[in-house]
């Protein structure tokens, strides 16, 4: 799924799932690098969402009429 459309909860759930697989050593080294990339992408997305003001959200809230 595209991280931009995910909620924090979904992102964390996916991260947890991947970490569990890594812990259980279910992944071979090739998959491992793929999945670690995905984790870091998801974390980056979450951090950006936390810190970077989304003008989209701001506009929606501003344009909301009473």
């Amino acid at each position: 799924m595209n991280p931009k459309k995910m909620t924090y909860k979904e992102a964390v759930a996916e991260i947890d799932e991947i970490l569990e697989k890594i812990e259980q050593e279910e992944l071979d080294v090739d998959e491992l690098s793929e999945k670690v990339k995905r984790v870091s992408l998801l974390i980056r997305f979450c951090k950006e969402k936390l810190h970077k003001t989304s003008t989209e959200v701001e506009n929606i809230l501003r344009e909301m009429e009473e």
Partner: protein
Amino acid sequence: MANAQLTLSELNLLIKETLDDTFAGLVWVKAEIGEFTVNRNGHCYLELVDIDPVSNQIIARAKATIWSYTFRMMKPYFETTTGQAFGSGLKILVSVKIEFHPLYGMSLNVRDIDPAYTMGDMALKRREIILRLQQDGVFEMNKELELPAVPQRIAIISSPTAAGLQDFLNQLAHNPTEICFYTRLFPATMQGTQTADSIINALEQIYPYEDLFDVVVIIRGGGAQLDLASFDHYELAYHVAQFPLPVITGIGHDKDETIVDLVAHTKMKTPTAVAEFLISGAETFEGRLLEIEAYCSKLLSERLKKENDWLRQTMVRLKQGVRHFVQKEEHQFSLTALLLKNRVPSFLERQENRFIRHRHRLQMKGRGTIRDQIHFLKKKDSDLQQLVSRFMEIRNDHLGKARQNLKNRLSFQLKEQLAKLSFTEEKIRLVDPLEVLKRGYSLTYKNGKLVRTIQGLNEGDQLVTQLHDGKVESEITGQVTPLLQKQESSGLTGNIG
């Protein structure tokens, strides 16, 4: 009757005297505050009412006053004890002096108040409301909602002018970890009798935009710390409890919890505390992200180390294996070399001997064979010559015989052919017609045609008879008589002539 006629002033004076006599001292009265005003001098003017609990109708009404020197003392005492702002809607137990003024009528001058009565009434009301909410099955509903991992989009219900609101917004905007919060204010009156309706109205405005927000906060700060009765409100609590987003309260009272606080998802004491709660929620989430990041890289490096170790071990094992193998091969090789060194000379010697032996044998055998072959060839040659001369003899013999044979056969055949020829000449001579005619036979023709039968011959027919030395012409004079069958031709012949 006429004697009983009084002026209004006289009547009012009489009433005042009667009242003063009857209510010489103070009287404890239970009533509800209806209207309530405080003038510039700090004097308090009230309307006390009695409301029928069944019909909700006002069934008694009286004016009351609290002089400023009393009110100054009484108000804080009441409010700190009850946690409730002194104002309309409260049920109070007050000690009053009944006064009657001829011009202004009766009024009750409040001298003392018993907050315990109000508290008891409030507690009773609260218990009733809580019970009702529980019976409705909504009391825990908002608490059962899951607070989002990061409560980032916040719908605020507050008074736009409230000092607490600005603090709250500033605090969110300037949070230390610079987390981005989105806020939107839904204005509401936060004190007085309009509070509950106003907040319900704000909730209804948020409701259609449920998806745009993570939480709703109801905050009120600074100024009026009291007026909790507005939040011990059934309708309001009912709405808050059932709201689809988690509601966080910061109503600004730290003594008692209002019913709205009780049904809200999370209760904070002040707007500041609400802001801290939201910020810490987001920070906790970020902290978790960092932990995950660290954990993930730890897992990764552990795994990589493990893989590296494995590789290294495998390399070592491989090297050892190769070395061992090479050593073994080397050993084998030197062993073989040694063996070879020892064996080669004797082998060469043996081979040389064999070679010499073979050469010798070959020489011997070769010579013998050539001799044999020559002998054999010579024998063959003489055999062939003998065979040829003998064959030639036989052939010559054959040829001589054949020649003799041929000679004999030719002379015999010649004789035979000559005999056959003279015989044939004889035969030919015998059958010659001329010879036949010579022997006495003749040929008779009639009209140039040979006559073979008597038929067709008649008397007088001219005949020509051929003999070997000439022709005779004649005529048939006699009768033509057929012969007996065997003597036909001689008979005919006999008649001619």
